[in-house]
């Protein structure tokens, strides 16, 4: 943590990146729209940004403390896996 002030663009925050490949852009977007509406339960100390590029879902976290980061990432992974399992069981998406 000695160089914390200099790392991550000088913000001193902890950052975590996750990239999840999906079979198609449509699938990635479905996952995005399911996972993004709920706000982070803890108001301060953590923020995340979920985006889709091509058929990849990307998530970027920025946190003040590792403990908060761990909880948020862990919850997200649980939620992601539920969404993916749902898509597997009840997909493929209907023709638009």
């Amino acid at each position, binding site marked *: 943590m000695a160089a914390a002030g200099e790392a991550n663009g000088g913000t001193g925050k902890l950052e975590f990146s996750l990239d999840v490949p999906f079979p198609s852009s449509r699938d990635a977007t*479905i*996952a995005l*729209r*399911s*996972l*993004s*509406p*709920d*706000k982070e*339960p803890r108001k301060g100390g953590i923020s995340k940004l979920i985006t889709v590029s091509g058929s990849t879902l990307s998530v970027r976290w920025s946190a003040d403390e590792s403990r908060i980061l761990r909880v948020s990432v862990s919850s997200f992974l*649980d*939620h992601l896996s*539920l*969404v993916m*399992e*749902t*898509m597997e*069981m*009840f*997909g*493929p*998406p*209907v023709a*638009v």
Partner: protein
Amino acid sequence: MTVVIGFEGSANKIGIGIIRDGEVLSNPRRTYITPPGQGFLPSDTARHHRAFILTVLKEALEQAGLKPADIDCVAYTKGPGMGAPLVTVALVARTVAQLWGKPLLGVNHCIGHIEMGRLITKANNPTVLYVSGGNTQVIAYSERRYRIFGETIDIAVGNCLDRFARVIKISNDPSPGYNIEQMAKKGSQYVELPYTVKGMDVSFSGILSYIEVRAAQRRFHTFIILLLSLQETLFSMLVEITERAMAHCGSQEVLIVGGVGCNLRLQEMMGVMCKERGAKLFATDERFCIDNGAMIAQAGWEMFRSGQVTELEDSWITQRYRTDEVEVTWRD
């Protein structure tokens, strides 16, 4: 013909139900039951719902004999309730709504109870007593809102019962309230407990503290006396505030909804008050008074048919959601 599927998981029950124009086609449910002496925590409850939700969803479709294409709208509980379980259920609802290309509808849990009660009992315009582990409200409809006439100022009546059940280590299977009811039936002695009606409202945390101290005497027959006395006192308070609301509104109908509404002693006591006033009492059985998916589907059916829809970006869940926040567009 309108078919709505409803997802409910705000407390320890995960239920998914399908309604077609007032007919319940399926309503499967699973309950997360903790060992005696323990309540259910949000993360464990969410884990339970996560484990069963997709199975229950399959059951709902199979028992109704329907395919996803037959569904017109996907309704889910937006709130109020416990955060983690609400999220788990909303995730699946949002995902299937997109997979099946159907509109999504976020439903208020309390209104789900009310609309299911109205559907099943055909009550016209009742004063509603909504009593469960999480909520205690007296509600009456007026000008496009379900208005709260009276409520608990601290904990729900079901929470008082459940927490006392934990203190004396009563089984939570099938529910602590049910077991309290059965044990109380064996009693015949009554002791006076604090009676805390506050005008149109009620308070329960004081009674709970009081009986927890009394229970520390640890004699079995004392438990039965306390349980009987507790029911009599709590239910009398509920009858009083319901009657007060009825007098305010000039209402001749009472509808009891919510898990505590299954209690036959509560129904009996409310029935006595109703008879004295020449009013009618309505209640449903445990399929519908306990949290279930079909009640969310029913409220969703009403909302959908009156033109409401929830955009995905607005489909976030919320632990606090007042009954009177919703515009009741489906009634005059």
